[in-house]
């Protein structure tokens, strides 16, 4: 059974449709992410599940019960906020125990549960500390413990790592994933950070303009983006406008930007126009005069393990090419050949307008 289900959910603020007719099912025990740029409606969607916002239309279901009219304090969900929302007038213990004391649980049991939960987030030694003295990462771990100790059906996380530095983000990403596995709680995780969503989620939904662009596993999203928005929002890619030149024995010959690909036709007909996504790491740099096409390196972006080259093709477009850094990255101005497999590109059926191909 789905732990959370959204049925045709929309949310209007004034005249603006922030969430536009969303359908969504999150299964029990799943780590599910809502990914999208700011203003895409992901946080509003989360707040509607939490009960902080009421949907304008549609139904929010938690474990099969319609909860549209259930106030936040009665819902089987708990929230972890982006900003530190720990109660500053309470210490770590009182913060984590807050929800249990509201439920009037016996003292000894509260003590036991809080201690066990603090052990899960590796903060058992901080139980009597004031929360204002904790670091950002520790505070966020207390916030996670404060929510999880109530054993919610669903834990809702609103960009909980957004305010932390990168190193801490990476560590807490792993910890969160471990906590989720250990407790078996359903997590719904809102983020604008595509790398975070890819590494942590079982499944994710990419949102744009209040709608879900695509829903699936991280690998599906990356390898087979349904829309050009998804292709360019998750990772970097080269979006090419192409045309099917010929179809032969179930394979389509596609010409795009002076390049040629051979992809499964899948019912497409000759002359049809379509967009292609060609990932930078699927292109190999080879010596000038070799490979599928020729170009000149226009820009070099050194990223450590890899180097991102912008290669201006003689045939017209500029392609992003990602290569291992090796001993010495190539310099700008170098003439190079580009090589790629005939099936390296992915066709994008539903094309949406994309502002930037990166």
């Amino acid at each position, binding site marked *: 059974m789905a732990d959370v289900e959204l049925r045709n959910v929309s949310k209007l603020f004034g005249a603006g449709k922030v969430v536009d007719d969303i359908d969504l099912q999150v299964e029990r025990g799943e780590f599910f992410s809502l990914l999208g740029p700011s203003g895409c409606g992901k946080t509003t969607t989360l707040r509607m599940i939490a009960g902080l916002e009421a949907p304008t239309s549609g139904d929010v279901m938690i474990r099969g019960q319609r909860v549209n009219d259930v106030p936040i*304090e009665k819902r089987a969900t708990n929230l972890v906020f982006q900003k530190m929302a720990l*109660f500053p007038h309470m210490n770590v213990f009182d913060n984590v125990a807050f929800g249990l004391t509201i439920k009037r649980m016996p003292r000894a049991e509260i003590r036991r549960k809080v201690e066990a939960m603090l052990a899960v987030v590796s903060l058992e030694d901080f139980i009597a500390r004031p929360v204002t003295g904790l670091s950002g990462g520790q505070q966020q771990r207390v916030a996670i413990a404060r929510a999880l100790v109530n054993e919610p059906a669903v834990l809702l996380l609103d960009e909980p790592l957004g305010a932390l530095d990168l190193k801490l983000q990476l560590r807490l990403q792993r910890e969160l994933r471990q906590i989720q596995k250990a407790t078996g709680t359903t997590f719904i995780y809102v983020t604008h950070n595509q790398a975070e969503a890819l590494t942590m989620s079982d499944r994710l939904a990419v949102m744009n303009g209040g709608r879900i662009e695509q829903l699936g596993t991280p690998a599906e999203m990356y390898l087979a983006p349904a829309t050009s928005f998804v292709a360019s929002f998750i990772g970097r890619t080269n979006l090419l406008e192409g045309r099917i030149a010929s179809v032969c024995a179930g394979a389509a010959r596609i010409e795009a930007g002076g390049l040629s690909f051979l992809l499964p036709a899948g019912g497409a007909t000759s002359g049809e126009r379509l967009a292609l996504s060609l990932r930078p790491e699927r292109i190999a740099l080879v010596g000038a005069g070799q490979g599928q096409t020729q170009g000149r390196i226009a820009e070099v972006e050194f990223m450590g393990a890899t180097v991102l080259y912008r290669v201006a093709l003689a045939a017209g477009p500029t392609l992003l090419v990602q290569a291992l850094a090796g001993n010495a990255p190539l310099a700008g101005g170098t003439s190079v050949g580009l090589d790629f497999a005939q099936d390296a590109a992915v066709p994008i059926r539903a094309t949406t307008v994309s502002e930037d191909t990166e």
Partner: protein
Amino acid sequence: MSGAAARPGNALPRWMRVSLLVAPGFVLVMLPFLGAMTTLGAYSLNINSTDGSAAGFHVWSRFLGDPFSWKVIWTSVRIAALATVFTLLLAYPTAAALLRLRNPLFTGLAYVALFSPLLMSVVSRSYGWMLLLSETGFVNALLGQLGLGPYRLIFNETGVIIAIVHVIMPYAVLPILNIMTQVPGLYNEAARDLGASGFTLFRRVTLPLTLPGIVVAAEIVFALSISAFVTPSLLGAGRVQTLSQMIYENIGLIEWAMAAVQAIVLLLTALAVLFVLERVNRSTHAAKGD
């Protein structure tokens, strides 16, 4: 990264810059205060006596040995404390309401209403209350319509407290409103998410987080109430004896020494209460861990 050297172009050392900033306020407030306190202390010890009596603590012992003095001190503290409590009870929800006003027109009108008592002179305000609260006044007429009363609402402590609360309300609303705007709504959302609602939410989260503002409001309001003079004189009409009125009477009687003793007692009483309130404030900060 501290000291003058850290900031290029600042020729003056830090202590001098701070001194210059504090100087005007210090000259205006602290010098007259210190001067007045010295003079009061001297007068209370009968040092520049006009009637030839010796200097010493005999005026002090006369005042402190008289049970009536203690009764007046107690009346003053009681009136100020009750006025403070009622003011806070009114000011807190008022501040909460002001915080929630969305329409700037309503916000403006609310502030005008809130500050209107301060725009009137204390005398006309007090006479206004006498008219409203007298046995044949508006309030008793209204209560009469409901089959209640008439009640004695003036020339007793009730009337004094009502009139004091009226004028000190804005001084209490502002610090409370200020702290309410500083406490993010996030805490509220977090508490509700964890199951708290209604009075539990208020008692466990909202009240403790706004307590520092309440304490500041209480300090201001108590200090203003205990030193109020015109309102208790007019609405008490001699039947409500407070320290400030006794001081005034003794000045009229050229009993300088006694007036000085009472003024010092009034100040010390107010300071003692402020000290206790400040301790409350400290202990709430200590709970926060900073």
